[in-house]
């Protein structure tokens, strides 16, 4: 007999998302029935090529770009590395970027711009960091830990102004704006023209698509050079037999996420706001971090000062509530989150923080259950420590 597993209360959508059943169904044929190499000459392989090209086209359309400007990669980290590998010169990044961006920036001359206490990058700070030899500005669409949505349009204006200045002064050095939009797709607008970016990174695994699949969109004027050479696929920028299933799944995932973005964001914001309100009512000393006015709908970064968040995570998992710590492992004091350091959160608060990220697995019922369990477990820890 099939015993139904007790339901998980999953509150970590920023880390991973379960695959959408439509995505899975769209990918399925390409594992066995249509397994062909898109580069092979016979008709069934040509069909696979068409499916792949169609997927890239749909990916491009979903973000307002052209298919030729899309490179399918094995995830956001690769996309980020690819855009950084193509440039020679100075780069500007924010202090709260994902490690993939920070590490890639370290391979170049770079300036890290600070953020305010809400984790927002200030466009003036970016303007101040840009030098005549700056070639790339890379700012995330939204922060993965805090949910803070960055003012990309403002930053795009700054970059545009610099480009204008160089054009007028006859300077040949190009300047590009890249955004790591791994977080936020499916909740906010990711139309490249509206954002004003020259390059954009997306990750299928964060939007109910397959893991190890991502894309780099780069406008045709952005120079790129390949990280992986070989058979010359993806216009020579990413060799290796195309991941047809992955691209097809990614296209479906992105389309579905985009189509439902506005409604889903409203729904999640409501759930998140209730959760935040109730947790603050139960624990007035708790601290919510991030930009409350410009925040991803599903994100709630909350600190319970004095509590060891890692213990809390273990207590919660035993009650089937899965949630991330808001900082790195508290027991290892050397690796506190660079994001929380950047916003100046006290170590005590940082060590007691949870990152709750809601998504498609969240609804009113599960959210209410999770809330009750979190309140219980925080109280339990508080009691234990009083002894």
């Amino acid at each position, binding site marked *: 007999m099939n015993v139904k597993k007790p339901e998980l209360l999953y509150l970590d959508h920023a880390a991973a998302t379960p695959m959408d059943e439509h995505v899975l169904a769209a990918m399925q044929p390409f594992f066995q029935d249509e397994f062909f190499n898109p580069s092979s000459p016979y008709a069934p392989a040509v069909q696979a090529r068409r499916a792949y090209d169609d997927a890239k086209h749909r990916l491009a359309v979903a973000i307002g770009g052209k298919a030729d400007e899309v490179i399918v990669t094995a995830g956001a980290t690769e996309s980020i590395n690819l855009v950084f590998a193509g440039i020679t010169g100075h780069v500007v990044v924010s202090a709260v970027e994902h490690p993939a961006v920070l590490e890639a920036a370290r391979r170049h001359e770079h300036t890290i711009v600070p953020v305010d206490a809400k984790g927002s990058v200030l466009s003036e700070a970016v303007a101040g960091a840009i030098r005549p030899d700056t070639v790339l500005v890379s700012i995330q669409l939204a922060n993965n830990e805090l949910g803070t949505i960055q003012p990309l349009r403002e930053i795009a204006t700054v970059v545009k102004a610099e480009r204008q200045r160089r054009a007028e002064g006859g300077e040949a050095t190009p300047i590009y704006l890249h955004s790591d939009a791994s977080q936020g797709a499916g909740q906010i607008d990711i139309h490249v023209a509206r954002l004003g970016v020259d390059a954009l990174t997306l990750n299928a695994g964060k939007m109910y698509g397959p893991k190890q699949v991502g894309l780099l969109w780069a406008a045709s004027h952005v120079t790129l050079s390949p990280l992986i050479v070989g058979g010359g696929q993806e216009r020579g920028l990413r060799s290796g037999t195309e991941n047809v299933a992955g691209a097809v799944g990614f296209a479906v995932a992105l389309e579905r996420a985009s189509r439902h973005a506005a409604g889903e964001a409203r729904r999640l914001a409501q759930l998140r706001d209730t959760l935040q309100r109730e947790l603050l009512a139960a624990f007035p000393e708790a601290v919510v971090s991030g930009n409350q006015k410009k925040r991803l709908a599903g994100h709630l970064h909350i600190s319970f000062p004095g509590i060891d968040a890692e213990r809390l995570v*273990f207590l919660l998992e*035993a009650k089937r509530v899965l949630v991330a710590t808001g900082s790195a*492992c508290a*027991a*290892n004091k050397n690796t506190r989150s660079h994001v929380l350091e950047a916003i100046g959160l006290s170590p005590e608060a940082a060590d007691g923080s949870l990152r709750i990220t809601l998504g498609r697995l969240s609804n009113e019922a599960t959210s209410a259950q999770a809330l009750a369990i979190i309140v219980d477990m925080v109280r339990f820890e508080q009691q*234990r420590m009083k002894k």
Partner: protein
Amino acid sequence: MTRIYVGMSGGVDSSLAAALLLERGFEVTGIYMKNWSQDLPGMKCPWAEDLADAKRVAVQLGIDFKVFDFEKEYKHYVVDYMVEEYKAGRTPNPDIMCNQEVKFKLFLAAALADGADAIATGHYARVRCEESRCAIHHYPVSSRGAEDGVDDSTAQCTKAFLCVAEDHDKDQTYFLYRVTGEALATTLFPLGDYTKQQVREMATERGLWTADKKESMGVCFVGSVGMRDFLGQYVKTRPGDIIDKATGSTLGRHDGAIFYTLGQRHGLDIGGGLPYYVVGKDMAKNEVYVSTNLNDTAMWRRELTLGQLQWIDHVPSDSAGLTVRLRHRGALLPCILSGTVVKLEEPERAPTAGQSAVFYLHGNCLGGGIVA
């Protein structure tokens, strides 16, 4: 209530040790000793996962949990010692040094300073003391208090003895003989009465996270790299000759005498014929001597001279019933000890310099010394 700090490594043994102490009515705090965290070529040090496992079990048990950082001390007392010994041509036992210097000295002191009455570990060994009201060694504390209406005893022994574990096959007293009687007075080994099999079962019964966790073997940080690669990180080695002891002729080349140990058969890279065994080496000349003669006198010894003798209680007054063990899980060999010389009834194969000879009498581990 008696307060115990239990060293939790993230393995099943120390996890169950913590659970048993709690069931026996002690107030228990889990401690992860951070001794080593460096990755080595081809091996990711699992310390962070081990720490998370230990902490998860502590949370399961509802006990306090702390991290004690001994990385600097461990490097000094254990790793540097080990490397120096190898450089001197000996084969040291880092586990014994770790117990002597880190676990039952530094950890013990840090725990007592932090408010503990005693420490515990998941070693397979037993401690016996002669103070019948000793609050540490004569549990169950809670049932005694409750049923007899007797207050929790505050008596504590000042010296205790080391006894072999119920599970003779798992017994780890060989690694513990350099722990002092005074240290043992504030030490508990909750697993000493159980077999490994029982420990796994009890951990499973209690639903402990680590119940099925794979065993780590040997010196933790060398485990999957191998001593050879590890030493290669710390010591400059140069190739030298492998010489036939009988003929004096050079048979081949080795990549550093430091890597060879007495009695070793493998790794000589000499083709064909009878297998060669290492029967000696000269560290200064960087030469390794080998022989095909399994009966080579260097391979078999009946008499061993020991250095750094250390006794948990006192020097055994005579050798009646005295036995000695030359390696972990090795046989208990009848012997006669006079001064620093131990005489065996039968010649024993290749007890290497730097290894320990540990003495036992009627199930008690008395102490021992290091083969010179």
